[in-house]
């Protein structure tokens, strides 16, 4: 847990985005977990521009979560470079925020929806400071956007899966990051929440922020994303859905044989 240099919990690292810089730039990144010899990630190169909305797809174990952890600064960068709005990853905690997979959170802990959303403001507060008027306004607004104001005082353990996901997204909105990472946000989430999530992501991107969404559910991509990154230890495809989700790529990543005629599968061309 402590293999990452921890720094600047609080205000002192609020670097403004550098002009003309990419929202996210990953160069030649590779990563191997300690105790294993097989790299999880190899030669990752990608660039996301401000205002872009990108899907990160790939089978389980493709390294999607690891890549997100690296971007967020939760794992040490072993090889290559990652920069966020022109700043080295890990140099600034304010620019990037993540909606984690639900399993990493202790939902039984007695906290209210409002308290969880307020946690999104902590990065701006740091030690010894309590949320002020500005923070409370940001929290109220985030809850309103995610339509959870009416359950603000409920305990998070009593909520449905979809509501819990809204709370996490509201927390990320309160964080007010410029690069948002969503790790498998669609698992166990109802359709209404999915729609609200995509609508919110759309809105956030129009404000010039960037969003990277990981998923192993290929079905939703055609509707909501114009750009897809296909990851299987390395980037095997980057571009519009039709060019990336070729039967060959899917067969390669998901490990089944490519059969002639699969290119006519209707959901791929929808």
């Amino acid at each position: 847990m402590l293999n990452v240099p921890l720094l600047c919990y609080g205000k002192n690292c609020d670097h403004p985005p550098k002009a003309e810089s990419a929202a996210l730039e990953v160069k030649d990144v590779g990563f191997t977990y300690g105790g294993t010899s097989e790299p999880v990630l190899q030669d990752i190169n990608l660039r996301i521009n401000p205002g872009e909305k990108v899907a990160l797809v790939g089978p389980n174990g493709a390294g999607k979560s690891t890549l997100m952890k690296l971007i967020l600064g939760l794992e040490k960068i072993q090889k290559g470079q990652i920069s966020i709005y022109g700043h080295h990853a890990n140099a600034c905690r304010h620019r990037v925020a993540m909606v984690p997979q639900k399993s990493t959170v202790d939902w039984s802990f007695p906290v209210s929806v409002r308290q969880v959303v307020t946690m999104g403001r902590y990065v701006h507060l740091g030690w010894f400071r309590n949320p002020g008027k500005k923070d409370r306004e940001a929290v109220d607004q985030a809850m309103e956007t995610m339509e959870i104001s009416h359950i603000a005082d409920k305990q998070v353990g009593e909520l449905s899966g979809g509501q819990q996901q809204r709370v996490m997204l509201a927390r990320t909105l309160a964080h007010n990051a410029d690069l948002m990472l969503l790790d498998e946000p669609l698992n166990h989430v109802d359709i209404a929440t999915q729609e609200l999530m995509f609508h919110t992501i759309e809105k956030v991107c129009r404000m010039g922020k960037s969003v990277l969404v990981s998923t192993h559910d290929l079905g939703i991509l055609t509707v909501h994303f114009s750009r897809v990154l296909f990851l299987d230890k390395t980037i095997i495809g980057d571009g519009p859905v039709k060019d990336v989700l070729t039967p060959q790529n899917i067969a390669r990543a998901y490990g089944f044989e490519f059969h002639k005629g699969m290119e006519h599968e209707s959901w791929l061309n929808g």
Partner: protein
Amino acid sequence: MAQWITEPLQYVFFLKGLGAGLLVAAACGVLSGFIVWRGMAFIGDALAHAILPGIVIALMLGIHMLIGALAAAIISVLAIGTLTSHRRFKEDTSIGVIFAGAFALGILLMNRVGTFQDLSHILFGNILGVSSFDLILIAIVAFLVIFLVLLFFKELLVTSFDRTHALAIGLSPLAIHYGFLILVASTTVIATQTVGVVMVLALLVTPAATASLLTKELWKIIMLSTFFALVSIIAGFYTSYYFDAPSGATIVLVLTAFFLAAFTYSKAKLRFNV
């Protein structure tokens, strides 16, 4: 009735003991919510046992008991942390090893010192034997613990709920964890005087367990825990004074009675609502 209540209050030893007990109860009550909801009951118990050698060595060397206990508690926390960071063990394994070893060392040392009777109040608490110096030390530790929990409340909250988010904003859950353990250890030390090494756990766990049956808000859990702890101390005091009952056991039984009442109430409420 009024006289029944005020009679013991005219004795200084009783007042000192009651003051110490109430301070300890307040500190335990405030910590209790986090101990229960962070799943730290086992480590609380382990720390309480691990301070035994510190107390005995302090007595052998003629240093104040609480100082020896505090040193032993902090060494145990660091030892558990070192073993756990080795990644070869899960934390409860490290706790088990340290806890059993330290307690055994304490028992052995007590045996060498040879005055087991004198030391039985360490094991079971002796609330009416609090000296002025004890009281000052207990007050300092109790106020410090409460102050620090309030000061770092939001950090405790975020590291308990979502470690990943804490790490992502540059806050080390591990640092908060060990900081909190040191608070638990210090509270354990001052609590041994009132309920003894063996039963400290009841003051650290039962109040919040009871409160959690009645409410799901952390603030209310903490307030209620503190209330239960305070009432149990007062009850323990008077029974100890009037019936010459062991104070530690009485305190724990009062807490347990609260728990059973709350449990029955929540069950009944569930049945009638559905």
